[in-house]
């Protein structure tokens, strides 16, 4: 069942067209990888879907409503959460409070006992249960990434947009985050993951969308995409160009 339909999405910054006439669908339970070289427009797509940017044109249909241009908090309340390229947390708040703030923003009348139990469940899910009273600014990079995911989960989303969730992590730390992503998907949450590291996306994605210069280049399964000449060219350049450089 298709839950997100992006149609003719366009956004420019001055003369630069960051996203151009982009169309794609996301079905319930999917893990969609959004990949492409630097400057391809991947993060702009995340910002447009999550309401952090308004599109110049196009629609973002989420469960029968066009959410394009909505304020970010309304989009969160509708069931779409996100993380950021540079892990963002409330640094002077404890890990526990970071989650509580998000949990109770949507569910205002949740009892204290229910809220406490849900926060502890979420922290256990991402493996931060022993760090609940630690200030967020004291966390390590991989823990910050997990806290971001935990914060996203706490708003009770159906779709999570993950912007480079393993960026800056060691392979072991990345694997730990990838496991959380897989567990999230098994629990029924749909995911769109932006990443320029192909290895990570190949591991987890059901479907890949490759972008280049703001446009969709290719869409397909990880196997199809990895063998596509256009993708190889976008990532590694044309054969003649490579030869010219050598």
């Amino acid at each position, binding site marked *: 069942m298709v839950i997100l339909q992006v149609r003719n999405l366009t956004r420019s910054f001055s003369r630069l067209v960051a996203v151009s006439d982009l169309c794609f669908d996301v079905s319930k339970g999917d893990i969609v990888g959004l990949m492409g070289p630097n400057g391809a427009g991947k993060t702009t797509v995340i910002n447009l879907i999550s309401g952090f940017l308004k599109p110049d044109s196009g629609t973002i249909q989420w469960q029968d409503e066009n959410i394009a241009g909505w304020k970010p908090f309304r989009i969160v309340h509708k069931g779409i959460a996100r993380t950021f390229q540079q892990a963002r947390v409330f640094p002077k708040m404890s890990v526990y409070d970071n989650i509580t703030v*998000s949990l109770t923003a949507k569910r205002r009348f949740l009892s204290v006992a229910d809220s406490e139990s849900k926060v502890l469940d979420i922290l256990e899910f991402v493996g931060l249960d022993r760090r609940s009273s630690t200030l967020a600014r004291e966390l390590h990079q991989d823990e910050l990434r997990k806290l971001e995911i935990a914060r996203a989960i706490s708003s009770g989303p159906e779709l999570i947009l993950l912007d480079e969730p393993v960026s800056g992590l060691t392979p072991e730390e990345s694997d730990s985050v990838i496991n959380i992503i897989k567990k999230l998907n098994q629990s029924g949450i749909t995911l769109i993951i932006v990443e320029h590291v192909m290895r990570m996306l190949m591991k987890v994605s059901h479907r890949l969308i490759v972008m280049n210069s703001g446009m969709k280049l290719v869409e397909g399964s990880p196997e199809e995409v990895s063998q596509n000449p256009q993708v190889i060219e976008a990532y590694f350049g044309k054969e003649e160009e490579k030869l010219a450089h050598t």
Partner: protein
Amino acid sequence: MRFKKDKIGGNMAFRLVGLLLLLGLIAVFPYLFADQYFLHVVIMANIIAMFALSWNLISGYMGLVNFGQCMFFGAGAYLIGFLTKAYNISPPIGILLGGLAAVLLSLIVGIPCLRLRGAYYSIATLGFSQVLFTLSLALPKITGGEEGIHGIPKFIQSVEGNYYFSFLLLLLSLGALTLLLRSRFGKRFISIREDERLSEAAGIDTSRCKINGTAISAFVAGVAGAYFCYYQTQVTPDVISEGLTFSGMAAVVFGGLGTLFGPILGAYVLTFLDEYLYFLMDYRLIVYPLVIMLMLIFSPSGIFGLLRGWIKERAYGNPSGSESNKKL
């Protein structure tokens, strides 16, 4: 009975005993020191402390540096001045109305200002307060012009009575703000200060939150202004001058920005300095900013930050008390 350990190293029992001792000291103080002038300075410190608490909520906890907070204090004071002269309203209702007038003003000012961020917000609030200051001079039939409104009957006649009432208002404000900031509602305010964009991503309606926070802050400032008007039996345009805003800001910065007790400590130290350095004549105006500059350089977290660090050091031998520092 076991008490739950709290974050700063004390415990509930210690705090409860401290609070009871403080309340006891406040209660017996006028009987121990009958100096009326001293009690007057305490009352003024309590009023400035309430004002500082109100500024601290919006600026220290929400990160919105408001240069026009005096307009909320002035709204409360002028409303009382006008209503008491025109309709002779009862003081308790007057104090409440003073707070509500400030809330109304916060909505009028806040809605356009809250679209702005950083320095633009600060300058816009300063601009609004200057407009009100000019209006207070330009509408003498309502505001009394430069002379202000005089002859407002005292709410409480004795200095001792005012001493207790000012403490009651201060403690009620402090208690309400403490409960607010420890609640999930209050945590949203803090989250805006920490990262407004992230707060939005967490599902918080930051515009509404900022309007609510400004209204609560304005209510406390308005109540302080209304009581100030009754206590001084007059209201003049000085209450909408930037001087008052800077006094509140100085108390907060000196005591500890974003702390609950810091602004009260700051208000006390600076009010007493101001009153008891009169022998220095105009030179005392140098001492005041000098003390604040020294505090900013050597202890940006204010007196309260210094005290808290000292208590933690005594308790743990670790000034910050953070886990990472313990590891190091």
